[in-house]
């Protein structure tokens, strides 16, 4: 494949049916994540002249020998000064085959919460390993978190192959170790590529220095990677965001429930339940501005009309009558704790936001804490500190309509909010509810 074919030459205003792949980088600090993204953008001709001039200037000013492509994504003053990534940067690029949103996430342990932010919306993880250092604790932590967040496709880039003499055996040992580790977590789709982000080998172009690798290059792989299955096979769920009542003459009696489809397919005529009460009715209309739709599926934003006048408000959920979610007052979940202020302990009270509903939660039990090196859970743990992952049971003040996160991301996820600071301090993934 030549670089020419990767430039977007499609008729810019013609019908554009390209789909989107959301990617997040993962890996330890100094594994070269920002450099790899800079290389992807540069070699696929997605950088602009003035951006290149700016990073050439910065590289020169800082006395660096070569143009440092990492400056394409490290945008904050403190990041350039320290030469590290602190917060997620989002980059956008496209090829004639696909559009991409790439979240470049930080490698430092102390910025894990920013990595989780980037990975929570990703379809695939771009996991980097420094060929000299191999798989590190932070590599395993990011791999585990990516899996926990529901990412089922891992692309393992063994980077800095130039510094190990392009040695095939080094690559194969790392690829095997990470594939084995991923397999233990249940991730079967791991593609490994030997690369040099600095020199571009196997990023966009094939590399003669590592012809022993059978290809394809990274970009081509990303173009053809199947996105994670959206949870559309699941039963229908529509969390109500906003009640639309126009109160105007031409739509005097209009009452619609606006929201974003979380899973399944909702059709006009469907029998539905309104959670948490469980009252039954049917769908009489699905509106999307100037269109009346026959059906809606994720991630469409629609407004639904129901046959009966029921108590429906923000936080209610319109669901398949046949397969409703659990109205839970107690949930078990994996939690990634993100507070610098306090650890998570039994009897803590927090605000919980799940879909469009916000209520209070009390920690009944911190049941286990993950050791990311062994993947074992420490059952004697009683608290979770910053960036630790554990199994927690929460009791809820009001029932939430939940599904296991494995089956439906949108209705299985929640965040925890510290009432004292209003900060987001926990990311939760529900395993069960009752």
């Amino acid at each position, binding site marked *: 494949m030549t670089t020419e074919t990767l430039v977007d030459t499609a008729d810019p205003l013609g019908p*554009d049916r390209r789909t989107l792949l959301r990617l997040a980088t993962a890996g330890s600090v100094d594994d070269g994540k920002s450099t790899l993204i800079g290389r992807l953008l540069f070699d696929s001709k997605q950088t602009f002249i003035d951006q290149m001039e700016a990073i050439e200037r910065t590289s020169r000013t800082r006395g660096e020998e070569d143009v440092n492509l990492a400056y394409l994504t490290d945008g904050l*003053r403190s990041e350039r000064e320290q030469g590290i990534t602190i917060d997620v940067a989002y980059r956008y690029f496209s090829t004639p085959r696909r559009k991409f949103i790439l979240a470049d996430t930080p490698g430092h342990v102390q910025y894990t919460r920013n990595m989780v932010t980037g990975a929570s919306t990703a379809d695939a993880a771009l996991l980097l390993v420094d060929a000299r250092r191999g798989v590190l604790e932070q590599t395993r932590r990011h791999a585990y978190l990516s899996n926990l967040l529901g990412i089922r496709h891992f692309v393992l880039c063994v980077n800095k192959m130039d510094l190990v003499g392009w040695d095939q055996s080094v690559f194969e040992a790392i690829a095997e170790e990470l594939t084995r580790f991923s397999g233990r977590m249940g991730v079967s789709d791991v593609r490994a590529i030997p690369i040099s982000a600095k020199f571009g080998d196997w990023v966009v172009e094939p590399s003669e220095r590592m012809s022993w690798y059978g290809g394809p290059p990274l970009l081509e792989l990303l173009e053809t990677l199947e996105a994670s299955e959206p949870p559309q096979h699941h039963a229908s769920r529509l969390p109500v965001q906003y009640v639309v009542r126009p109160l105007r003459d031409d739509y005097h009696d209009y009452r619609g429930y606006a929201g974003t489809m979380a899973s399944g397919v909702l059709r006009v005529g469907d029998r539905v339940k309104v959670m948490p009460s469980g009252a039954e009715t049917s769908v009489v209309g699905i*509106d999307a501005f100037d269109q009346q739709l026959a059906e809606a599926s994720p991630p469409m934003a629609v407004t639904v009309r129901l046959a009966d006048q029921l108590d429906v408000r923000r936080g209610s959920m319109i669901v398949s009558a046949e397969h409703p979610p659990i109205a839970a007052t107690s949930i078990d979940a994996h939690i990634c704790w993100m507070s610098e202020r306090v650890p998570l302990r039994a009897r803590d009270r927090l605000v919980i936001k799940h879909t469009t509903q916000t209520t209070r939660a009390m920690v009944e039990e911190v049941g286990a804490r993950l050791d990311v090196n062994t993947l074992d859970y420490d059952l004697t743990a009683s608290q979770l500190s910053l960036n630790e992952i554990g199994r927690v049971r929460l009791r809820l003040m009001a029932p939430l309509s939940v599904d296991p996160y494995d*089956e439906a991301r*949108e209705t299985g996820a929640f965040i925890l909010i510290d009432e004292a600071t209003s900060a987001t301090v926990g990311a939760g993934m529900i395993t069960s509810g009752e």
Partner: protein
Amino acid sequence: MTTTATRPAALDTLSWLEAEGIHIIREVAAELERPCLLFSGGKDSIVMLRLAEKAFWPARIPFPVMHVDTGHNFAEAIEFRDRRAAELEVDLIVASVQESIDQGRVVEEVGPRASRNRLQTVTLLDAIAEHNFDALFGGARRDEEKARAKERIFSFRDAFGQWDPSNQRPELWNLYNGKLTRGEHIRAFPLSNWTELDVWQYIKREGLEIPSIYFAHERSMFERDGMLFPVSDFVPRLPGEDPFEARVRFRTVGDMTCTAGVLSEAETLESVVAEIAATRITERGETRADDRFSEAAMEDRKREGYF
């Protein structure tokens, strides 16, 4: 739990972006007390206003729109702003930088390079306080600039309007945390994930009207720092900056003192977009003098409370 329903095809990128934008706008409207949408008559805010129109249809948009008017704007953009607000029957608030100057809240820069661009921040923060807004929708996109590439969709400002990039809240899935502490407000960016080309494609797909200065037209221009600026009463010209007639269009709509035009023959949406798709220079690099001061010009202005 599995149903036998067939799987609909994946949404194309524009439909996906539209749905995400509507979701964000509805979350803010539902969780915050007094939101307001920043509307300049520029292409990004036109798209954002369209998403708001769709989000609440058939109800009217349940919040006002506001323009921070430097007094140095393009007449075509101001005319468009007023007309669009009237069509949608939304309240339009105009916060005037001139009034901030008259009241002594800010001091106008002097000299040929004077601009009211930075002064907007004070006018904006005063207007937020006066109207008690707790959320402002902005049309900023992450592809515009490297500090914006780092910003959350719900971005918090302290009582001084400051953004603290080293201490942003984690933002997971589409679960936005709208809880404020005293004195804080939110800047919400529904177009975060859009690129410049997405915005143009959407304008075309929706058949949206945009101000005439986005298309090629004859205008009196002068050259400064390698860019072409429009001749106006607001910008004194330096010796040697002689005006000449040129066919230009504008890639962004901002204050006339810092918005440059590009030579163009593009008179239709198709030809404008064809030119943009072929360009090798970013939108801000080509036409925004305000981002050229330093590597981190935008980060610095955002820290102070800029849009």
